[in-house]
């Protein structure tokens, strides 16, 4: 296998030149081809029948040796042709947390409507999925093994096939620069995030992991669309059928203050993990949050987009 992986590396270096963000169409230049183990055995068989024919001076022996050899060679062209003209589009995958499996969606289009058979596709280290045969465009979801926290690229997605005779393997690596974002995995026992308050007093006095006083019930008001579901008064709804939202007394709008510098400990990954967990908790409670990392400041905000920005900052952070 080492020979093959060496070829893979060479091929990848070549493919880097064609790194794509959007779609890539496979041309014969991007496709590499080598005999498989069966192909080598096939060559051995040809050699044996050739020697036999030479020895017996058997004309028909020659003829069928050459026929077999020709079939093998022509199949090489067919194997490569099974990949040419295939258009591949690698979409930017959804962000995941560290340790989770990355799902990459790849769209295929057969350039000239030809049916492709036996084409497998896999992301680096992932399992191969088979492209369904047929000329229609289709999607395949690839799984790549769990990654650690990073903001990176999808990297190499390889298509390969051994159609039609299994004697040759043609493969085409596609280097995708589509972004992969892997958030740190949330620390399980992080608890509630520290509260920040207006007027500065909150910062010094409230450190650590005490919950903020979000629980002081204030009153009810009508539901508006932006309210998170966790604040809806479900009991009241059951009773009265009206959607209302609990309002809490906030000691000057409470928000979660996520500060990297304030965390103790030496492991940066652990710290990021904690921050991530807090961010999720805060979001879940509908509390605005802010993030402070060395070199990155995200002011207070709420909503899904804000959360994503925060998580991405955590993912991208280089300690």
């Amino acid at each position: 296998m080492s020979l093959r992986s060496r070829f893979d590396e060479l091929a990848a270096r070549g493919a880097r030149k064609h790194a794509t963000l959007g779609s890539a169409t496979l041309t014969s230049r991007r496709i590499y081809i080598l005999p498989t183990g069966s192909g080598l055995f096939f060559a051995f068989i040809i050699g044996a029948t050739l020697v036999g024919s030479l020895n017996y001076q058997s004309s028909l022996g020659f003829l069928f040796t050459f026929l077999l050899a020709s079939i093998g060679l022509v199949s090489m062209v067919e194997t490569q042709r099974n990949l040419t003209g295939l258009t591949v589009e690698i979409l930017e995958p959804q962000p995941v947390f560290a340790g989770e499996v990355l799902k990459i969606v790849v769209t295929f289009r057969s350039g000239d409507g030809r049916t492709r058979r036996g084409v497998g596709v896999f992301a680096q280290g992932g399992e191969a999925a088979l492209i369904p045969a047929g000329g229609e465009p289709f999607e395949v979801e690839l799984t790549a093994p769990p990654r650690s926290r990073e903001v990176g690229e999808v990297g190499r997605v390889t298509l390969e096939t051994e159609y039609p005779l299994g004697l040759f393997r043609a493969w085409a690596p596609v280097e995708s620069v589509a972004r992969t974002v892997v958030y740190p995995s949330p620390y399980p026992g992080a608890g509630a995030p520290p509260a920040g308050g207006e007027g500065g007093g909150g910062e010094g006095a409230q450190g650590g992991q005490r919950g903020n006083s979000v629980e002081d019930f204030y009153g009810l008001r009508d539901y508006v669309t932006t309210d998170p579901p966790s604040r809806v008064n479900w009991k009241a709804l059951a009773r009265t059928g009206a959607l209302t939202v609990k309002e809490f007394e906030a000691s000057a709008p409470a928000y979660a203050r996520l500060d990297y510098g304030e965390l103790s400990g030496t492991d940066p990954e652990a710290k990021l993990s904690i921050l991530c967990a807090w961010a999720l908790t805060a979001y879940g409670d509908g509390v605005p949050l802010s993030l402070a990392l060395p070199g990155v400041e995200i002011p207070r905000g709420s909503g899904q987009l804000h959360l994503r920005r925060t998580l991405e900052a955590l993912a991208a952070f280089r300690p």
Partner: protein
Amino acid sequence: MRNEAGERFAPLSLQVAALALAWIPHAPRFPLWFSGVMALLLAARLGLAWGGLGLPGRWMLLPATGGASVWVITQFRPFFGGNGAIALLTVMVVLKLFEMREKRDRIVAALLGYVLAATRFTYEQTPFAALWMLGLAFLFTYILVESADEERSMGVREKARVVARLFILSAPVALLLFLVFPRAGAPLFTIQGSRHGVTGLSEEMSPGSVTSLVLSEEIVFRAELADSGGVNPELYWRGPVLEEFDGVTWRVRQKGEGGPLPRQVGDTLAQVLVVQPGVKWITPLDYPAAVEGGVRISPDGVVKAGRAGTSTATYSARSLIGPSFGELDGERRSLLLKVPEGADERVVQLALESKAGGVSDREIADRMLSFFHRENFVYTLRPEPLGPDPVADFLFRTRQGFCEHYASAMAVLLRHAGIPSRVVTGYLGGEYNPFGGHWIVQELHSHAWVEAWLEDVGWTRLDPTAAVSPERVRAGIDRAASLTSGYIRFGFGKGGFFTDMRLAADYLGFWWEDWVVGFGQEKQRRLLKGLGLEGRTGFAALLAATIAAPVLFLLLLGAVYAKWRRRGLDPVDRLWKRFLRKLEKKGIVKAPHEPPEEFAQRAGALLPAMAAEILAVAKAYANCRYGRDPTPGDLAGLKKAVDSFGAKSAKG
């Protein structure tokens, strides 16, 4: 044991069937028990799959394979070159079927099956064998496709189509390689093949021993004669020369080399002889001057065939067809004058009568021939048996017989008259096949005649049988024999449709043996010479061509496919591109970023006369490409617009 065997029953049964078909032609050469054991194993394998049972593990297969190999090697002796190797291969393939777990195992089994089928060509190369193999090649390739199709997405028809396409594309390369691959003269090492029974002429003759040959339709050889310029040569094909006679039996001279080859006098006629396997003598036309093909002409003009082979052998020869020639030394002379002791008086008397008057040797011979013609000699295939002095008995009592009798008697008479003579055996005539332009010579054409040394003339062929029934010399025995009693042959020589069919089939067979099976160094040279490539027949050149041919073909194939890909573009785009090309010819080039309608406006400004047309095409294209529901009619409209674009101005 995993139960995966049961899932793949259909492909497995195909493998088994293909293997059985590969084996069947071999079966007659093998003991029945061997075929039986193989059949049992195959059935067992099918049974395992049918019953959904698992395959035996490695621990069982390895010793089984080893044991089977030893068993085969001990059972089949000698091992190499005979059935032993084929038997071992068969056992290996059958056992391989028990080891099929992944794709690669199936491919290996199919390829081994292919080799097994091909081993047939070590002993048989008939057209039927070739067709059988072609079918098997198709089947095994199908199995390869099936093995590679792991997700089972291809139907039977599609797999067959793939195989057909592979075959069609491979055929030209295979043929080219067949013609160009350098052929060696001799095999790499000698194999003791199985020997056929030797039929045909022999090195002794007792009048009466040729009877069994006469009726045999077995083909001895086929011959193509070069154009002899309008002269129809007499078709005497020269075989063994018998010089010693003991009163009953004529034999080939037992000792001595014989004299030098006669001087070549006169024109030679070229021939190509395709000789059946097992035939001991190569019989060119009387008198052979040169034979190519690794054989020697003895000083008596006899050519013995080489090692007994298993396929036909082709020889080129040249024969003298002109007048007499040659020499005779003293030692030979006395041998050829030797008459057995105690010769019958009447025989001696007859000889002396022929000599009377001090006439020339030629005249003596003619007198003897007219004796045969004049007297009531009868030609028959069923003569009366002859007494202890066959010659005298024949000449004066029975006066019936066939070529052996006549030749023997005449040679004896000539010797008594002091003319050195001997009996030459061989063949006379043959059946002409108009389709192939060649002669078919069968055992029934065997003949014996006399060769005498006539003073002032030299070696001369004399055929006393011809003196009796002239028919025989020209038309062949069936016609002659039909004139006499004792003729029991039917069918042969009947004219009409069946004869034509038979001759056509024979022509195919001849052509097959000559050009396909017999394609060797000489034929290759001839072919290349015919193509004008005479200088390039060296080994290195041919080897280079062998390597170049498939490479070039693959490049060609790749180029053709690339062209197809371009044509395979979406028809709308194709038409649009065609339109753009037309405009390019007028000097208007569309920039890549320009949308079609904008471009149409710009083009219209540059070519005001065709502005309306250009716009129309662009609109039609936009509709087809980006429109909501383009109909086939829209596409047709676009095609029409593109095709007719520019035509008006050309006419105008």
